[in-house]
């Protein structure tokens, strides 16, 4: 079981910054996803307008969320599917296990699902004697390694090909020792062969859902590998996991969101496979699942809706804010300590886990605004991070040093005469102290700075002192 480590953020960061493989992988994200998104957004002239439309669709849906969920449920049921509601992760797990047990399932294949990660469904199914198998290649790799995903769309982006080969050799029992696994294509062939059997023999297939369409009662998955389709087509039972904010009114609305999703995520014009599923196998169909279930999870989202964070419910999980975040690009996904990393995680995680469990996340940002600049549904992430900081301050969850330093600063900042009285002499002293080099290598009150950077010295007198002298 992968334990949440959100409260150990600072030590997670230290480990991440010296992890050479991780740093190499993060450099790849910057040149890959970021570069490709730029190209994709520039070659579609309507891209910025489509982002506005996408934002408006999600805002409208959230403002009418109960109505669309009700219509969605009616249409799922009309097409022969089942809707299950779960207030929290415990309820969601129990519902899924009950469905699996009702068909006497032994093995369960899984498409990539962030909700699956959120409710830690694999561990629960294993504890109850089932064998869950991740089928997205990245998820499969980290499942073998016993890790959590480090990125919401590229879960194994921190793993090297040598580490993948090691994981395969350790777990694939029939793999001959002399078989080469040096090249990515050899690893690919091994994974394809291994997972083929799993797809064909699975009793239940669990996928996530990028969207739920109220108009038709459909669930939508977006993948590149085709694993989600095999997962939901071959077994007798398909369970789609989603959360309440995934619902979208119509096929047209879904289409607009799809036009911005892949472009923002990977820079693709469209992902390889976008699949709209409506109900179970029809009477004369030759394939497809006999049962179709959707589990809709709340798990704290209604509280976000009722509070100051309802804009976060627009998120379509593209990962653009991660890819473009200089903090994420420095520390990777695991340092954030739970399922959702990067700017979207720094807003969502405190909402879902409680701020006490994740107070560092909204603080560990320079508020540079790059995330908002690229968010396809224009979530004002920096503003939402500030809202969490307001609560960190009010509930006194931050570190005391910064708090007191800022309180003292405010004492002076609010009293201009006092400020000028003290500022002048202090700067003159520092300037004199550093006169030889022009900078300081150590300042006790700014250890965080001088530990790894020199501190440029003040010029001496303050501007206000000099201005006064000049005016005389």
């Amino acid at each position: 079981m992968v334990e949440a480590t959100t409260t150990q953020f600072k030590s997670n960061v230290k480990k991440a910054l010296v992890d050479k493989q991780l740093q190499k992988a993060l450099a790849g994200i910057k040149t890959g996803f970021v570069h490709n998104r730029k190209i994709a957004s520039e070659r579609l002239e309507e891209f910025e307008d489509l982002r506005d439309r996408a934002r408006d669709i999600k805002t409208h849906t959230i403002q009418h969320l109960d109505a669309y969920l009700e219509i969605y449920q009616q249409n799922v049921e009309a097409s022969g599917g089942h809707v299950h509601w779960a207030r929290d992760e415990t309820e969601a797990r129990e519902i899924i296990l009950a469905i699996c047990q009702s068909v006497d399932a032994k093995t369960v294949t899984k498409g990539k699902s962030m909700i699956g990660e959120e409710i830690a469904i694999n561990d629960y199914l294993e504890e109850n004697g089932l064998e869950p198998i991740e089928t997205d290649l990245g998820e499969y790799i980290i499942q073998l390694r016993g890790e959590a995903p480090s990125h919401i769309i590229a879960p194994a982006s921190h793993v090297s090909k040598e580490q993948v080969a090691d994981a395969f050799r350790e777990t694939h029992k029939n793999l001959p020792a002399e078989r080469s696994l040096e090249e990515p294509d050899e690893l690919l062939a091994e994974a394809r062969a291994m997972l083929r059997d799993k797809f064909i023999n699975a009793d239940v297939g669990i996928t996530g859902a990028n969207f739920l369409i109220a108009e038709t009662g459909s669930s939508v998955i977006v993948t590149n590998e085709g694993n989600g389709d095999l997962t939901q087509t071959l077994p007798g039972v398909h369970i789609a996991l989603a959360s309440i904010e995934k619902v979208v009114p119509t096929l047209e609305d879904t289409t607009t969101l799809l036009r911005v999703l892949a472009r923002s995520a990977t820079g693709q014009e469209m992902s390889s496979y976008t699949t709209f599923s409506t109900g179970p196998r029809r009477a004369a169909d030759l394939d497809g699942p006999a049962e179709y279930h959707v589990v809709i999870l709340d798990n704290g989202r209604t509280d976000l809706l009722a509070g100051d964070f309802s804009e976060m419910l627009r998120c379509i999980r593209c990962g653009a804010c991660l890819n473009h975040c200089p903090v994420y690009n420095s520390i990777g996904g695991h340092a954030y300590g739970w399922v959702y990393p990067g700017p979207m995680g720094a807003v969502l995680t405190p909402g879902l886990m409680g701020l006490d469990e994740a107070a560092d996340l909204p603080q560990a940002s320079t508020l540079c605004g790059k995330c908002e600049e690229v968010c396809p549904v224009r979530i004002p992430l920096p503003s939402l991070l500030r809202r969490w900081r307001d609560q960190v301050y009010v509930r006194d969850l931050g570190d005391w040093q910064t708090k007191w330093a800022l309180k003292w600063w405010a004492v002076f900042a609010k009293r201009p005469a006092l400020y000028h009285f003290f500022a002048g002499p202090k700067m003159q002293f520092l300037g004199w102290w550093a006169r030889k080099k022009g900078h300081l290598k150590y300042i006790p009150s700014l250890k965080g700075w001088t530990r790894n950077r020199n501190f440029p010295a003040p010029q001496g007198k303050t501007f206000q002192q000099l201005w006064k002298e000049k005016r005389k």
Partner: protein
Amino acid sequence: MTVASPNSGPKVGLFVTCLVDLMRPSIGFAAIKLLEDAGCQIEVPESQTCCGQPAYNSGDRQNAKDIARLVVDAFEDYDYVVAPSGSCAGMIKEHYPKLFADDLEMTPRVYNLAQKTHELTSFLIDVMNTQDLTAKLEQKITYHDSCAGLRELGVKAQPRQLLAQVEGAELQEYEGAETCCGFGGTFCVKYSDISDHMVKQSVESLAETDAELVLGGDLGCLMNIQGKLSRLQDEGKETNLKATLKVRHVAEVLAGMIDTPPIGEADG
């Protein structure tokens, strides 16, 4: 060059910013020269200290409001308010209205102030249409776009349009120009390791150009970048970093006031 008569131009209140006041007054004087050359009448209210951003970004709304009120009181009667910082101008323009969103008395006052507040280079271009700078600088330069100026205020072309007027200055863009340097106010001290990693990446990107001088519009970012450059040079690391890479605020170059040592360096 046209010299406006001293009493005809707009009345501009200079918001010096606390960092410039404390660390590098020469930026303030450069700003004044540029504004006066553009025909503005400058005043520097003595009751100013800080814009309140450190408190605001740390969730201390009460202190942020108290400090912001001082700024509003001191500056609301000028035709324009100009700051040699995108971050502080952004605080006044973008965030004061949010800070006082539920205060009926303050709302019209902060909107009024927000609407006439500008970052220095954008003011010179967008409002004063500055076209005839006389500064000279025979150097290869590069420019760091600070986040707040770039993303909150859209400051991107303006400093470049001004630098294009500086005779001899040759601008080379660097790839990391729009990527946050890791300063982030209290962030650089609270999350020192991450901040250090970010500024290292900025500095590595800077090293890929032939620039001899890095310019920017926000002193905090410039101090961070220079502090890292200087430490790396102390440690003898990053041999591809020319020891000659200097750092200055763009106003100093535009005003032709480069007799002071660059940021973080001593006389001589």
